[in-house]
């Protein structure tokens, strides 16, 4: 999560903006949408995404002297944002853990019978290979908000943010075993949710 090494995907416009920290107010117009989309796709919550973006800008002002001007300003801010997202997830995780345990939200009982084999119809529908990636994402995004936040968050950090096991465990103060359980449950629940939604939509379009 080092803020200086975030250079993936630099465009020419990024480089053009390099060193334009003289007026932070233009940051909102320049990078607001970009950072917000990034944050929203990770946090799935408007308020949370706005909050981390605002914090990113304010931290940017406070730490402006640390921005060396090397590399893009957008990438520098993204580095701060990524840190803020992890902080936010940690807070939300801690709060959530106090309330209800994610460990109790196990989708297995809905999917497997007592012998540990698939229940009839658990995954009866074969996914369509021809789906547009945007279509899949719309469904996945909807499903992410239906599974427990503690599971969704580790899944996002692991797959979207590509954080490794050690990092996630350290940031969220959980054990690797707990992380694996959460990831697996997230995958099961998401697959179930996506499968069901997809099937329902197919039915609707066929009937229409």
């Amino acid at each position: 999560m080092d803020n200086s090494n975030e250079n993936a995907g630099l465009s020419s416009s990024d480089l053009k903006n390099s060193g334009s920290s003289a007026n932070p107010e233009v940051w909102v117009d320049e990078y607001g949408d970009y950072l917000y989309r990034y944050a929203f796709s990770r946090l799935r919550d408007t308020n949370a995404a706005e909050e981390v973006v605002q914090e990113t800008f304010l931290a940017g002002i406070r730490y402006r002297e640390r921005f060396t001007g090397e590399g893009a300003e957008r990438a520098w801010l993204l580095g701060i944002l990524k840190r803020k997202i992890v902080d936010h997830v940690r807070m939300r995780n801690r709060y959530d853990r106090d309330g209800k345990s994610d460990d109790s939200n196990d989708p297995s009982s809905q999917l497997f019978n007592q012998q540990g084999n698939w229940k009839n119809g658990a995954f009866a529908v074969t996914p369509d290979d021809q789906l547009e990636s945007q279509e899949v994402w719309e469904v996945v995004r909807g499903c992410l908000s239906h599974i427990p936040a503690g599971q969704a968050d580790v899944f996002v950090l692991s797959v979207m943010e590509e954080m490794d096991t050690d990092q996630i465990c350290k940031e969220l103060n959980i054990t690797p075993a707990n992380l694996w359980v959460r990831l697996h449950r997230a995958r099961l629940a998401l697959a179930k949710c996506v499968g069901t939604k997809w099937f329902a939509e197919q039915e609707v379009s066929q009937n229409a």
Partner: protein
Amino acid sequence: MPNDQKISELISKSLSATLTNDQQRTIDEKIAASQQSRNYAKLSKMINDSLSDVGKRSRDGDTSVAPGLSADAALRMKQSIRLEAARSSQFGITVTGAAFHDSAISSTHAMIQQLPISSHADERSLKSRFTLTRELGKGGLGTVWLARDERLLRSVALKEMNADAAEHPRAWERFRREAEITGRLEHPNIVPLYQFGTDETTGQPFYAMRFVGKRTLVDAIEEYHDKKIAGEDVTMDLHRLLTAFIGVCQAIAYAHSRGVIHRDLKPENVALDNFGQVIVLDWGLAKVNDGNETEGHMSGVPLSADSSFTKTMAGEVIGTPLYMAPEQAAGQLDKVDSRTDVYGLGAILFAMLTASAPHQNSSVQEGNAVPIAQLLKQISGGATPRPRDYMSGIPADLEAICVKAMQFKPHSRYQSAAEVADAVQQWMAGRSERRQKYSNSRSEARELRTAMMSAVRDLERNVRFMSSLPPIQGIVNSIAGRRDDEQSVLRSHLSVIFSGLLKTNCDFCAVSFAKADGSKFQELVRIERPIDDVSNVRSIPASRLVSGNLTSCMKKALAGKPDEVFVALSSECPDPTTASWGKSPTPLLAATVPVFDDETEEPFGFVRIEASLERLIENEIRGRFHAINRLYVLDNDCKVLMQLDSSGSRVKANDGQSMSSIAASWDSVVPMLKLEGEFVDNQDHAFYATRIDLVPGRYSLALGLCLAEKQTK
């Protein structure tokens, strides 16, 4: 072959980690064979790819992954950026308390030049920012003002260094350090520092912090004790005080985690507002303890410098020996560590419980103030003060927390401020649970009292009914020679009825009908339950029936009106008929009713039921109490009649012993029982007692319930 669930786990794992060849083969085989597993694998992969893809696209700035920022949010952000940027450009990067945390303290000097302050009597104002309103307080090192921040239009507290202190080079260091330490500690329960600067004319440093009002823990403690003395319900006040105390503990625990020791904890240094906010003030004596990140900036002043400084600033340092830990009073600065603050926390708790400072008693001797040097000597060598020496009625467990925090030897205290907070929190949680249990047990005890009294009423009703049975008058008539009925037949009828009564009431020991003549009595029918075989009931043959002199209780019963039942304990009038029970330590409860000759209307004799008090109590008590640790039933002389343990089993070890010899505190309970009929332990919720007036005015039982693990002494 593993089941589907195991396969699903392997599929999940394959998406985040590399599988072994064996595992991969297992999955492949299973997927080939099972449609559902194949579908799950496919869906999972699709989801994984989708997320990973969106992750990349959002990094690249793809606008289709999510909607952009709303116009409202963008506006809000611009405003806050403008504010923050304005603040930071005005004062460089070190503006707020947070700045001490974020940036290098070494930039303090740069800031001092940027923050001029003019000095003209009490109406001075910092050119750019502050107007002094009035003086709030003055210490050896500095004066605290209430000031107005003209830029943000809010009240702040502003501490500036006193002119005389400013002549001392150490004071500069101390003042700067105080500001640095306070600024560095960012915690909701620690006063936030807004700004540090220097007066333009005098060149003396000042700092601005949040104005937290003038109410301190001292006021709250005074209020609590005033209410308590006035007899008001202070449960919630104590709860609020303790909640504030936990806030203080947390602030101190945080400071310790940053290597800072407060060293001057006392109620005066804890500010409270009306909204439950607790703020620890005055970090002027704080010490930076270790060499982590604080070292570079804060331990520039060697500790030895502190001690030399304290000599000159004596007023400030020894202003608070009343709360001081022994190692501090002894001047062993090398031994001062976080556990010195644990002592200080204990001292604050002490003040909450007793309304006195812990060393208050040592500070006065024969009405005169003890010289400071002598007081410090006493503290450094003396025993741990105990709250109970200052005030009675303090919850024992809470006192124990206080005493542990204030142990003479640091290693015997709680080892951290967080431990103190935990202990108090646990006490608070336990207290509400205990209070609930206590209230339940109290209701149970009151129900028992009612049940016992109604059992006596039942006894009275039964004996009255027995005396009205037709065979009774039949026997009376037969003895008077008015009827020819065979007396033995009537007696056997009566025996049958009496036996029936005894069989259905297992606490009854005997039922009898006797004739009285002058000062003598002669039993005519008697059914009794053998002491060694309670399930049996036997009729006493005529040859074994007892006669003798009327006892005082019999006389009193015979003197009564028809249907008037006289109830007495066997101990009140020893009785030859109860000889078979005489060896039993259990008292009997006897209900006697006179029998009149219906013809002559003269007293003829009496019917009497004797019940075993012990069994009567046992019947009523069974299953009635939950969550008690020990139950005592005491007789009229407060000797143990019966004792039950937490499982409801009889414990006979103390039977017959006086309660005072079992629980020393019992003697203080007795007057309450006599006066009020019950003893309620509002402090510890550990013991409850109630009086059961079995024979009003003559014989009472006492019921004692211990709820806590230990008996409070």
